[in-house]
């Protein structure tokens, strides 16, 4: 599944102790090509490619001990 970044933000603040090892991390809203908009994280992005409108591909990663769908550059 692929999609397009609708919005993103780079979280530096540790809001929960279990997120302390994750910061900074990128949370995002992604418009998937099936028309849905989903909350996710962006992974493997460098600063140059990170922008609203970037094309992404859904992959799976371990976050907080769970396997969750996240988005990497397409």
């Amino acid at each position, binding site marked *: 599944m692929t999609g397009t970044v609708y919005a993103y933000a780079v979280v530096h603040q540790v809001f929960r102790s279990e997120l302390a090892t994750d910061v900074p991390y990128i*949370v995002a809203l992604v418009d998937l090509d099936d028309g849905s908009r989903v909350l996710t994280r962006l992974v493997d992005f460098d600063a140059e490619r990170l922008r609203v409108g970037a094309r992404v591909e859904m992959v799976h990663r371990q976050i907080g001990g769970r396997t969750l769908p996240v988005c990497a550059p397409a």
Partner: protein
Amino acid sequence: MAVAAIAGLGMTELSRRSTAPAVDLAATAIRLAVADAGLELSDVDGLLVATSPVAPPHRLDLTVARRAGLTDLRLASLIGAEGTGALQAIQLAALAVGAGAARAVACVFADTPVGDDVGGAAAFGQSGIFSDDGELDAAYGAVGWVTAYAMAARRYLDRYALPDSVFAPIAVAQRDWARLNPHAMVRAPLTVEEYLASRWVVEPFRLLDCALPVNGGIAVVVVPANVAAELRAPAAFLVGMGQGHPGRDRLTALALDGGGAAQARAAAFGPAGVNPDDIDACEFYDPFSYVTLARLEDYGFCGRGEGADFVADGRLGPGGALPTNTGGGHLSGFYLQGMTPVAEAVLQVRGQAGERQLPRRDLVLVTGEGGVLDHHACLLLSPRPS
């Protein structure tokens, strides 16, 4: 022609430390506001309590009436409307006194989000902003109101190809105002360089882009316009007001089209025949710097995408052409939701703003925000009824 006016203002001490419970702060604020208006508690026959969306349900309820010494009320209700509650309470109070349903309505907000062991990030780091149950938000770490607003700000910056430093003049202008306000939480001088060196919270927001939550309470008393004209204290007449509630969820609320602001603006400006040029000062609900930029555009002070240029030359600060958030706003003043801009507007309109008193304050715009650029409310205040 205004039908109602704010005739009294009461503010408790504000603190970043643990304080008395919110209900006690609210009661104190009400007593102060009633006395400020030159009224007796027995003159007040209405009470509208704006509740905080981040507070547990019973932190502030109608027991405040008893604690404040208000009895035999003809109107008493809680207003839960995200961050727009304070402005909505004032609007409903104006409608009530205009319709003869009450003679004097106390509108109050108080909150105790921070404490000796609870800072702003913990107090406003909730889950459930993006999804109803909050479970997915927590799993991804998409928590905190700042994160949702940061996404909106990022969309704005990317749309117009702007650097994150465009928010610097807003933070600096508000600090310049805060330096003139004895109630402001932070009054040290601030340079653009110091702003840029402040730590990231959620990019594109640095620490100095974020509101300063405090514990405290603020109340106003709303009376009919003809009554206000005869009271001892100067009044702030409500010459315009509006609300807008598009009803979006957070996945669709970041459209950058102003959310409820367009509807609120039309309702407030239209009947009063007001244009942006007529506004002498703005008191925005500005939990994050970007919100000021967005609302300057949404209210037509400048075009879409022009906000960064508009604020760059010190226009919003002391001596600027459009004084904005003249008490330091939420960023350097204090964050008590909608009552922060309301209190500052009332002080300015009444000519009671001390060192920061504006020479021109015939028409002041006040805004309220709720639910991440979704709910919106505004007031137009003037020292004259029309």
